């Protein structure tokens, strides 16, 4: 603890805030201590809303050592009063660091190759026999298809050119284009607010250099590790989630596709219209995944986790959990 304010100063502030005499504020705080004490004696627990909970914790007999003589002594059982701050208090006190999230230590979890330990664990929780629904992927992902190569970019390029020319009449045109783009994503319910901004960020980058079409040739060259695969040309409105549903019948297998198209797809929620996407085929079937399929799914989810973490998505960790699930 760093600095402290005195009890007197605290009483003064309280009196000023509540508009009561200092005497009264002082008495109130004294009585508050008594009331909490009484509550602890009676229930062992006192809750003050938005502040926290005072708890009585029993500490049994423990053996200690007298540091001077080295002699063993028994510290008799006693109670200790604990205080658990309420979430509101915790957040306010921690506002400086609230943005920081817990991150997994690389290579600290169960490595993918230690299959045996993870397998025996599955029978232990047969209740979760619905593997189709691991925590993360159950939530439909509003993966936005963004027309970069398609109409939108053409539109934006046109708009940009028109704007550069400074034509006033032409400036009337852009709104209609923009409206069209905003109408386009009917599916995303979750973050319609975020998607448009991504659009804005993404497009100015591509507009100055339309030659970025080049990478389109690369994905087919990307090895899919010997797996048979199909190629899908992305249409407007396609999402990884939908593609997984179409090709596997299981929307939550989308990380497989995401992973197979790795260098090309950065943001899992952003698929460019017109690119060819590799759809890796399963070794087994969606109902009976082989070990290979599971591993691929786990890796896919891990990549998705990394991507979402990069993008600062709050539920990124759900994907890591899914990854562990498939390991």
């Amino acid at each position, binding site marked *: 603890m760093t600095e402290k304010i005195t009890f007197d100063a605290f009483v003064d502030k309280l009196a000023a805030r509540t508009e009561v005499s200092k005497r009264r504020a002082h008495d109130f705080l004294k009585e508050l201590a008594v009331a*909490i004490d009484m509550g602890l004696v009676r229930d062992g627990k006192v809750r003050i809303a938005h502040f926290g909970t005072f708890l009585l914790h029993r500490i049994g007999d423990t053996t200690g050592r007298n540091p001077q003589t080295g002699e063993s002594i028994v510290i008799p059982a006693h109670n200790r009063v604990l205080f658990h701050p309420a979430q509101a208090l915790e957040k306010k006190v921690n506002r400086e660091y609230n943005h920081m999230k817990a991150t997994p230590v690389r290579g*600290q979890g169960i490595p993918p190759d230690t299959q045996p330990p993870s397998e025996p664990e599955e029978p232990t929780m047969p209740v979760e026999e619905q593997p189709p629904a691991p925590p993360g992927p159950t939530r439909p992902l509003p993966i936005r298809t963004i027309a970069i190569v398609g109409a939108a970019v053409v539109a934006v390029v046109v708009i940009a050119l028109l704007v550069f020319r400074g034509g006033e009449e032409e400036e009337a045109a852009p709104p209609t284009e923009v409206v069209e783009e905003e109408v386009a994503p009917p599916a995303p319910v979750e973050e319609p607010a975020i998607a448009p901004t991504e659009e804005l960020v993404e497009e100015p980058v591509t507009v100055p250099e339309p030659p970025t079409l080049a990478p389109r040739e690369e994905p087919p060259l990307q090895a899919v590790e010997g797996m048979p695969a199909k190629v899908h040309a992305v249409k407007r409105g396609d999402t990884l989630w939908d593609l997984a549903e179409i090709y596997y019948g299981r929307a939550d297998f989308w990380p497989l596709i995401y992973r197979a198209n790795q260098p090309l797809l950065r943001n899992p929620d952003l698929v460019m219209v017109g690119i060819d996407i590799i759809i890796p085929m399963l070794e087994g079937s969606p109902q009976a995944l082989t070990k290979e399929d599971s591993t691929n799914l786990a890796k896919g989810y891990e990549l998705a986790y990394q991507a979402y973490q990069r993008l600062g998505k709050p539920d990124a960790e759900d994907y890591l959990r899914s990854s562990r699930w498939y390991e």
Partner: protein
Amino acid sequence: MTHTEVVQTLARRLDISQRQAHDLLKDTVSLLTETLSEEKGVTIPDLGTFGTHIRQQHKAYNPSYKGLIILPTKRVVSFHPGTGLKGDLSDVEVME
């Protein structure tokens, strides 16, 4: 003991209305919260000392990931019970 019961006890003992006791408690809580948010501590006689300190970043095991995670630096509230509390409570049985 719930928040309401604390208010009732205070109202009875101070001979004020429950509304007044409620308001006083609310202001006390907000004042304490503010004080702690400003990284200052305060001692309430017979109750104890509230303060804050930094808990450094550290590693911990997270069972749902089956792995270690790094918990980020955090400013946490500390509470040291005052003697008024401790003395009274040392021989009370805790029902777990």
